[in-house]
């Protein structure tokens, strides 16, 4: 495929208009003079067409899922249904304030209530809360609930450890440490949790074991029931990181596998757009034991009316203003309705079929570190590239020239020069084949070309070292030449 991304010489927005002389902001009656802005906001005064053209040009220098395949492992970059965009913009959805009287927001409350129930069935949990804003936020919220539980049992003093496999997403240890726990990594064996090592690490100090299943190597943790038994025997909680739920819809679920609590990323499995980095929605589900600690409010139904219930004495309180990212909850609700039960099963079957097909094809070109049967994603090692003096990073950049996005690279860290790939159910065999051919061309290309890549994007290879050594982080820095060196810790 020949590919050229747009390359506009578009100036930054502040260069699109003449700067005017700084003047004070208007005085407002009743506002003390001391509070009045002495120099009006420094930002250009532009016409609407100028602004629209500027950001349209920027959009043309950005690669989205509608532009081409996006094989980022663990990110589940699937097509975002246009239907969801339409629905989320209905005035009845968008032009509704969370502080309106409950009688005027019965529709939003009912949609949220129904979505919670659907997700409870999908995950096998007792209760679901839509409040957290993203996956990591859901992790943190869940760990606070675990803490609240142990505080009530009088065990918080001693249950200070969170265990996680060495394949865990970085958010897991970060959330655990934010929640005040000490983290301990459990080594993997053949890409999966080493049950003996886990058992040896579990103790009366363990609060929680955090696990993704299938894990980030794309492997299903087949010993999950034994893991669950061991964790519970130690009196600890089992946490499910739902980032990889797309592989197991209707096949199994965290409740059935013995997990006590979980977060889901609606922007992965349920196709809400990721927005260039966010927003997300980090729904959490909890079994009976932990459900009383869920954040308030809970949505309750009395007769035919829905209301926000704050009478949950064990609740940890709030983690976000208002109740959840409703705009995304609505999109996920539409996604589930459209698929129905059979459709959701088909999602996982096809995602796993795509992944195994592509893994088999690409496995002929690059080593696959673990057992062949994978779930929705798989890992390759770019280590052999080293013999030609190139690295996984060069391959990733070269793939950008093929009109596709690059896979996740250098994760999981237990695989040398790792590439982690996921092409979900919305990708056709034609796209899979074209992607495999693109990888083949990239691998066959000369080391010089690989190192010079990309050449088809709006810019060439970016100097990331300079960005970090001499941080220039705003227009003000550019204007004042303030690239003050920042000490590396």
């Amino acid at each position, binding site marked *: 495929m020949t590919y050229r991304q747009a390359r506009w010489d578009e100036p930054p927005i502040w260069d699109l208009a003449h700067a005017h002389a700084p003047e004070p902001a208007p005085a407002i009656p009743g506002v003390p003079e001391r509070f009045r802005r002495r120099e009006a906001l420094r930002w250009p*005064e532009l016409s609407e067409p100028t602004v629209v053209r500027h950001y349209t040009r920027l959009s043309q220098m950005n*690669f989205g899922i509608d532009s081409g395949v996006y094989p980022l492992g663990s990110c589940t970059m699937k097509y975002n249904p246009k239907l969801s965009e339409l629905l989320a913009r209905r005035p009845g959805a968008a032009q509704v304030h969370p502080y309106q009287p409950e009688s005027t927001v019965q529709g*939003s409350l009912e949609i949220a209530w129904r979505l919670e129930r659907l997700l409870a069935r999908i995950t096998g949990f007792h209760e679901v809360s839509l409040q957290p804003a993203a996956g990591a936020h859901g992790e943190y919220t869940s760990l606070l609930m675990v803490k609240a539980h142990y505080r009530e049992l009088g065990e918080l003093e001693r249950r200070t450890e969170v265990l996680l496999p060495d394949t865990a997403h970085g958010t897991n240890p970060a959330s655990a440490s934010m929640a005040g726990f000490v983290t301990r990594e459990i080594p993997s064996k053949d890409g999966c949790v080493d049950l003996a090592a886990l058992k040896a690490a579990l103790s009366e100090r363990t609060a929680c074991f955090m696990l993704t299943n299938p894990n980030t190597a794309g492997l299903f943790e087949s010993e999950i029931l034994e893991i669950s038994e061991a964790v519970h025997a130690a009196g600890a909680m089992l946490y499910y990181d739902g980032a990889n739920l797309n592989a197991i819809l209707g096949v199994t*679920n965290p409740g059935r596998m013995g997990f006590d609590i979980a977060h889901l990323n609606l922007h992965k499995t349920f196709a809400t757009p990721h927005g260039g980095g966010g927003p997300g929605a980090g729904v959490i589900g909890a079994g009976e034991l932990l459900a009383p600690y869920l954040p308030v409010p809970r949505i309750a139904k009395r007769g035919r009316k829905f209301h926000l219930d704050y009478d949950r004495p064990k609740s940890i309180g709030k983690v976000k203003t208002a109740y959840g990212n409703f705009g995304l909850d609505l999109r996920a609700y539409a996604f589930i309705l459209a698929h129905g039960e059979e459709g959701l099963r088909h999602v996982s079957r096809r995602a796993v079929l795509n992944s195994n097909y592509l893994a088999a094809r690409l496995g002929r070109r690059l080593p696959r570190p673990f057992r062949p049967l994978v779930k929705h994603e798989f890992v390759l090692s770019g280590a052999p590239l080293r013999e030609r003096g190139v690295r996984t990073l060069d391959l990733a950049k070269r793939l950008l020239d093929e009109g596709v996005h690059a896979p996740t690279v250098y994760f999981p860290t237990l695989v040398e020069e790792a590439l982690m790939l996921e092409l979900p159910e919305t990708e056709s065999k034609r796209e899979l084949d074209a992607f495999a051919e693109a990888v083949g061309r990239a691998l066959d290309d000369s080391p010089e070309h690989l190192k010079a890549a990309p050449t088809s994007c709006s810019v060439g290879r970016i100097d990331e070292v300079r960005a970090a050594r001499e941080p220039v982080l705003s227009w003000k820095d550019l204007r004042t030449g303030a690239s003050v060196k920042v000490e590396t810790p």
Partner: protein
Amino acid sequence: MVRWISDEAGEEEALLQALGIASADELFQDVPKKARLGRLGLGAAKEEAEVVAEVDRLLERNRPLGRFANFLGGRIACPYSPAAVDAIVSRSEFYSAYTPYQPEASQGMLRALFEFQSLWVELSGVDVANASLYDGASAAGEALLFCRRLHEGHRFLVPASLPWEERSVLENYASGPGLKVEAIPFDPRTGLLDLGFVKAALAQQDVFGLLADVPNGFGLLDEQLFELKALLGEVPYVVAADPLSLSVLEPPGAYGADVVVGEGQGFGIPPSFGGPLLGLFACRREHVRQAPGRIVGATVDAYGRPAFTLTLQTREQHIRRSKATSNICTNESLMALAFVVYASVVGPKGLASLQSSLAEKARTLASALGAIEGLRAPRFDAPYLGEFTLELGRGTAAGFLDRLRRRRILAGHPLADPRVGAPSGPERLLVAPSPSVGEKEIARYAAAAKAWAAAPGGR
């Protein structure tokens, strides 16, 4: 079958054949039998038209803001957003992209985020902004943890007037490392900070940070914010500021704030029943290594041309894991785009004039309500901007709101924490005229409030 799952002619058969299997079910043999599911009862698939009909039927039970004279505000605003904002945010090159981990393919979003960071730097008056956090409340929570990284201590001071939701979120961010959020009482007449309490607390040497908000939870502008830095000395100073107010108010960086956070939803993001919102965060340059969340930096490409990339990533969870400054990964990039497009379309003069007009509406309504027997408005004797506190001499906030709702007025929202039940004293509401209300709606509000005050028990 759902159209969104790929179903090109015979392709699934070809995939199965290539793998030498008869059914995709064979790919799940590694899932233990005891963990397998039966039916979940999720219902049958629906056609797109049926989904639309079902969702519309449910949304029909909402009464959107357009049906009311709207005086709801607080941290979530109801701005009019020029159509151009949604047109840009709706471009799928932006909304359907992932985090710009491959900067060469993602310059558009990176540049937009760099412009967003630049705008928050200009508005806040501090040096470095990140590329967004979840919402204003969680941004305040991150600011609390940030302060603790800069300074020893266990106590974090916040105004007692802080909205209860924000206080609760802060307590949850503090509870991880076992820190304490402590309320600074307010003067009952003015609603402003009791600086005597702050001085006494600081003298005990255990305060690691203080957050003040502008406008505060009662809608007030507290001039003492200009004196706090001198009192705090080395103790980090956080200001939570409404971005629209900063079009006319002195930037907090100018009076010593070390961190400026805020809720950015008011800039071009519909209220959507409370989310997605937009967390704003900026800090001083010397503290950037302690900042949470993604940051975009300017650099050059291999040909020396200007280029942008995520930078200073060694602070972040995907590299630093348990030692990261925060667990945040997904942020609110698309909302940050809406924020900068909104401000650019409206322009600095437009923002200042919008804020002036909201302030005028608030003054008009407050003085009309203040003239009604049984109501106190504005409740506090202090300057305010676009929102004010209304106190009911008798009756309940719920009753007042319900009566006005029947007159198609969203009259404000109660300040009390619903977990605690009705407060013992008179009930208070925060009232914030939205841009869509004019003289007529203000007069209707005043008339309905007068009728209520005359007979709070009636319908």
